[in-house]
């Protein structure tokens, strides 16, 4: 088949550029901060200054790793959700997963949980419960195609979980508990540690590895129901599998970092713009770009101002601006 060498060269060029930009970004994220003074830390201090070493390796490095993992998982799941729903405007919290996690965390905080692992575990459990509720509800609707039913069920479950969260906030102690809940729902990696990262890493990495291995099937699942079926797949089963595994990764990431939105919605569009829609390339590209995006946003949240910003606010500001720019330039293909 005539695949032009120019195409391959252009693609390799983009991959190389992305890799180099990524390395530069990682170095920037590790060195940017407020020690010993606001700005970039001189790398030579790492050998001479024990405090600098402790800050970079003990605090910034696990936090950077957590940001990379968060961004990779959210963007991979977002790409999978958009393709499997055949809708470029959905995001991975779509089936109530994000709202469920927020309610789980809030309940744990109000119940007096002191351990961050209890809070994260409750968030993870509620996220999966929301997913299961959406799936069961979708089965119960006696009309419409599978996608429509799941979308409606996701709306209902999200709204239910949001209402639950509002009630918990209303009942929470405004001095001790409410600030924690609000802070959690805005998302942050300020408490990142290797231990906390390890807790999220297994479901998050497992979910992402599955999406990478299954990525060509994800492309096939973006086709219409009748086509997918005629290609010998069981569309409902395959789509449910992809959504469940992607959501488990999202649940782990949200349990670790709080509700951080926009990464899963906007990053897959950038990946598809650069590398084409086929998930054979857009899935790995989403993972790389999502990891970079989250790392950059978290560095801004951590180092741009004297006080820490909520990560979710930074991703929302940059993500929504990028999304509007893509929409305005006609770069988001919307069929309806």
């Amino acid at each position, binding site marked *: *088949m*005539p*695949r032009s060498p120019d195409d391959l060269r252009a693609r390799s060029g983009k991959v190389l550029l992305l890799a180099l930009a990524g390395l530069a970004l990682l170095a920037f994220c590790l060195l940017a901060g407020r020690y010993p003074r606001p700005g970039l830390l001189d790398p030579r201090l790492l050998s001479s200054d024990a405090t600098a070493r402790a800050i970079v390796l003990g605090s910034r490095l696990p936090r950077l790793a957590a940001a990379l993992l968060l961004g990779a998982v959210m963007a991979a799941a977002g790409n999978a959700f958009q*393709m499997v729903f*055949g*809708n*470029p405007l959905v995001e991975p919290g779509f089936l109530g997963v994000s709202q469920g996690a927020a309610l789980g965390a809030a309940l744990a905080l109000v119940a007096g949980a002191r351990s961050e692992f209890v809070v994260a575990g409750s968030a993870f459990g509620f996220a999966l419960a929301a997913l299961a509720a959406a799936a069961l509800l979708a089965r119960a609707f006696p009309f419409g195609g599978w996608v429509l039913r799941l979308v409606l069920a996701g709306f209902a479950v999200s709204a239910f979980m949001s209402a639950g969260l509002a009630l918990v906030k209303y009942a929470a102690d405004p001095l001790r508990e409410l600030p924690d809940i609000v802070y959690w729902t805005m998302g942050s990696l300020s408490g990142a540690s290797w231990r906390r990262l390890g807790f999220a890493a297994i479901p998050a990495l497992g979910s992402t590895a599955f999406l990478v*291995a*299954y*990525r*060509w*099937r994800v*492309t*096939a699942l*973006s*086709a*219409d129901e*009748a*086509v997918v*079926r*005629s*290609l*010998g*797949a*069981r569309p409902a089963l395959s789509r449910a599998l992809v959504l469940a595994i992607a959501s488990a990764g999202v649940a782990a990431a949200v349990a670790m970092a709080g509700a951080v939105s926009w990464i899963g919605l906007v990053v897959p569009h950038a990946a*598809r713009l650069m590398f*084409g*829609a*086929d998930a*054979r390339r857009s899935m790995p590209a989403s993972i790389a770009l999502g990891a970079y995006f989250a790392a950059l946003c978290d560095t801004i949240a951590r180092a741009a101002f004297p006080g820490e910003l909520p990560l979710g606010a930074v991703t929302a500001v940059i993500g929504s601006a990028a999304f509007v720019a893509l929409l305005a330039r006609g770069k988001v*293909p919307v*069929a309806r």
Partner: protein
Amino acid sequence: MRIEAVALRYRYPRAASEALRGASVGAASGSSLAILGPNGCGKSTLLGALIGNIAPSSGRVLLGGRDLATLAPRAAARLVAFLPQFERMSFALSALEYALLGRAPRLGAFAQPAKADEDAAYRALEGAGAADLAGRRVNELSGGELQLVRIARCLAQDTPAIVMDEPTSMLDPAHARMVADAVRALAASGRTLVFSTHDAAFAAYAADEVSLMRGGSDQFRGPVAEALEAGRLASCFGVPFGAASAPSAFFR
């Protein structure tokens, strides 16, 4: 491979009446069968049953003598490819990437298509007369170009039979003629073609046999010349048929 439906009955969930009431059709290797009939006569439902999208409540579909109901979806997808009437393109795959999806029944769940699969997809585009579209995005193609690329996706599936639902209904005469020529060429290459249409001229041009459907069952099955007799078409469609004076792209 012979494709045959025997006395199919089917009622959609919560529908008042049956969509199929004992419909039977058959097509042999190297031939094309047109299923002709008015809107709502059960053509699409019958095609759905032929490819296993719809499980009939009674009757059987036989692919080369094997009962479709006993075949796993992947095994069925290696025997018969399907071109639906409409298809939504949500993502800007290239025509080659789209045609490559036809290789899915031949690859494992976690496999990525190999160079040989990409070659097969490209040959399928060539076979459908769409090789020059390989690098174009499917959401930027015209309706006629897209139809050729969708046919290429069926060809890449490399099946002995292809089922097409109204393959020319949205096309201008030039593209309709290209699709009709593709149908004839595919049948001439030994494949079994079954397509639905309500265009008698297209059926006359592209089919060897015609099955006239009305009210969920086949009224008549036979060679084109017999089936497309004016009186028969009139009773099938409910309007008088006569020789038209306008030129048609479907002439031999």
